[in-house]
């Protein structure tokens, strides 16, 4: 195969797989920066995927080509709703963050499949009305050599994710909102003594994670699987959390790590075209992203880059 064509295949397929991870990892970053662990992102992605699939099928007649993009919003909104459960449980009711997240992860797939069954009378929605497909990015595909590799026939949502990562970085590190959000995850007492409403900022963090996690799920359904079923998300939420940790809770780092995981996931699809890798049994390539996730989580968790009061419930006046 022509080297250019091969590179384009690898890049576009890596980006396609990376897109949901980018959004969800960014979501996790906001939540954890405010001090709330959100392993419920897996469940939130499931709800986002489900909602966008339903929206895609039911609203295509109304919205036509815009449907998948609006589907992202639908997924994001249901994500916010679901994240509110986590917010109330952990912030107000002082539940353990891991327990609350696990409940969401158990409840979301059950609920989503149950509703799918009611609406579509099957365990899957079946093919969507309009998936994202592939697009050229802002005319950049006309740049010689790198244009075709990076910007031709590639994943629109991934580029949106890269843009959002940049915005997220600015918000976290360059704005008043970001400073306050981070202060709440690092030292909530200090924030409180300076008149910052700690609980409100934790809500913001969790709700942003719901929005972005829901969008991540919506991309998973509309850009990769082209349907919703129980296997649509299958661990992507956890991989996104690994990307967030690998990226040191920094939006740009999380985005980079998500692209790396996207590449790892794409290997099982495009590996057969790449010399050396094509000799590795496919099963190993399929397992690789999960293996990497486990290794990264085991190796890097609890490092000093984590927000200092991560996972610790804040009680006023203590």
């Amino acid at each position, binding site marked *: 195969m022509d080297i250019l064509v091969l590179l384009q295949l690898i890049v576009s397929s890596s980006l396609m797989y990376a897109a949901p991870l980018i959004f969800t990892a960014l979501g996790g970053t906001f939540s954890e920066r405010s001090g709330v662990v959100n392993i419920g992102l897996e469940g939130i992605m499931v709800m986002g995927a489900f909602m966008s699939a339903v929206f895609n099928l039911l609203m295509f007649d109304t919205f036509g080509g815009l449907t998948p993009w609006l589907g992202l919003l639908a997924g994001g909104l249901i994500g916010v709703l679901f994240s509110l459960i986590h917010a109330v449980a952990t912030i107000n009711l002082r539940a353990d963050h891991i327990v609350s997240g696990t409940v969401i992860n158990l409840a979301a797939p059950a609920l989503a499949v149950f509703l799918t069954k009611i609406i579509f009378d099957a365990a899957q929605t079946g093919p969507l009305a309009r998936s994202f497909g592939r697009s050229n990015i802002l005319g950049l595909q006309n740049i010689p050599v790198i244009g075709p590799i990076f910007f031709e026939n590639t994943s629109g949502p991934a580029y949106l994710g890269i843009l959002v990562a940049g915005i997220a970085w600015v918000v976290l590190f360059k704005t008043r909102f970001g*400073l306050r959000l*981070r202060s709440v995850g690092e030292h909530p007492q200090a*924030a409180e003594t300076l008149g910052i409403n700690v609980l409100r900022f934790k809500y913001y963090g969790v709700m942003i994670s719901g929005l972005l996690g829901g969008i991540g799920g919506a991309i998973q359904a509309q850009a990769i699987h082209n349907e919703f079923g129980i296997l649509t998300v299958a661990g992507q939420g956890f991989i996104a959390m690994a990307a967030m940790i690998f990226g040191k809770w920094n939006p740009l780092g999380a985005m980079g790590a998500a692209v790396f995981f996207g590449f790892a996931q794409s290997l099982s699809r495009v590996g057969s075209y790449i010399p050396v890798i094509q000799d590795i049994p496919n099963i190993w390539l399929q397992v690789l992203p999960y293996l990497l996730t486990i290794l990264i989580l085991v190796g890097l968790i609890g490092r000093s880059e984590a927000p200092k009061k991560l996972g610790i419930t804040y009680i006023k006046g203590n």
Partner: protein
Amino acid sequence: MVQSEKVIEMIGITKKFGEFKANDNIHLDVKKGEIHALLGENGAGKSTLMNMLSGLLTPTSGQIRVNGQDVSISSPNVANDLGIGMVHQHFMLVEKFSVTENIVLGKEEHRFGFMDKDTANKQVQELSDRYGLSVDPKKLVENITVGMQQRVEILKTLYRGADILIFDEPTGVLTPQEIQELMSIMRKLVSEGKSIILITHKLDEIKQVADRCTVIRRGKSIDTVNVRETSQQELADMMVGRSVSFTVDKKPAEPKEAVLKVENLTVKESRGYDAVKNVSFEVKAGEVLGIAGVDGNGQSQLISAITGLMKSASGKITLNGKNITNKKPRMITESGLGHIPEDRHKFGLVLPMTLEENIALQTYYQKPFSNHGFLNYKEIKSYAKKLIEEFDVRTPSEVHSASSLSGGNQQKAIIAREIARDPDFLIAAQPTRGLDVGAIEYIHKRLVEQRDKGRAVLLMSYELDEIMNVSDRIAVMYDGRIIAVVDAKETTEQELGLLMAGVDKNRASAETVTAE
């Protein structure tokens, strides 16, 4: 005259936590331009009272007036608007933020929500110059000294325009030089027209800077006095509620056989260098051996090696005739060791666990506290209650978490646990760090009492007063070695000071003699 204007009046303030009255009908007034000390033992309710001024807590009953106006300080923002700022006992700083970010947080300079770093840095620099509080605006807080961290805390209040500054035990973490600097900063602030409330239990600091002093005891305000007209002894007695003595009464020691023997002990630090170098000594039954020295000369490692928390590289440690070198801590404990550790939060207590569980921490696996692996909470509770009573640990209940106790009471709980097991050999490392005179007196008494019962006691402290007061013999450590052992009755503060600086014994004695 401006001097008599009252900026703060707290009238009949009561604060209850559940049924427990942390503040009980407290009266306090602060005049403009004065340094007003708030004196009280650990747990007397000083921080609680001040947290109501800074808006972190609200009173159960009582009235607060600021500049003559009735106010209700329902949040830190209200306090801020009233010009009240507090430097908290435990620094409220985000370590990963810069000095400037910490100072402006919550009241940031911004353009359309975007941080305006340059303006903020400039403002902080100006404020720092104006009050002589030197800080490095761009440095991360985790990389600056404790003294500078405190100046950052002060700048935080000044940045918000505070006129009334509350300092909650500001000197506990400072070096002597930093304490002197802080004192002159406080004087400078009042000369600029600010008013200061200084919380402390250190009498000499009050004598040094305060104009008036309000004494609080067990949640009640006892009296407000003019500092110039009141002696340290009077202040101490008022604070504790009885006559306290600054020196320990004790009869001559009657040392008997050696209980602990350390022979040629060497301990390596994790980074590979020798922290303890070929040290030999013994502690006899019926004596207190003091270990003096400047922090960081191997004292901590010596104790860690004896207690089994650190490996010995070479040498031999014998307790009650048993070789305990490099044995497990539990085996050493069971051979007759009691240990009051230097860091009570890290090694003395499990802070989130209840007081009764902490008290059972050394014996929980034995009968009657445990039966076939099951804990008998009834026994644990009644044992804990007995010790709480006997050792006067002030706590709302035995099932409160250890973290909710004041430092002095945490220390009493540890001492209760260790002494109640009646160990033949007791190690007390920095047993009174951060405590008030009442608690210090109590702890010293308990240590001497163990000695008089014929137990061996090892006291490690960086405080010369403490070492000279309580010990019978004093070993001075310098650079990992014991460079001299002197008789506590015969040595002087000056001689010890020289020894601690590494001057050898003959010269130290000679210099002391000529100096006299």
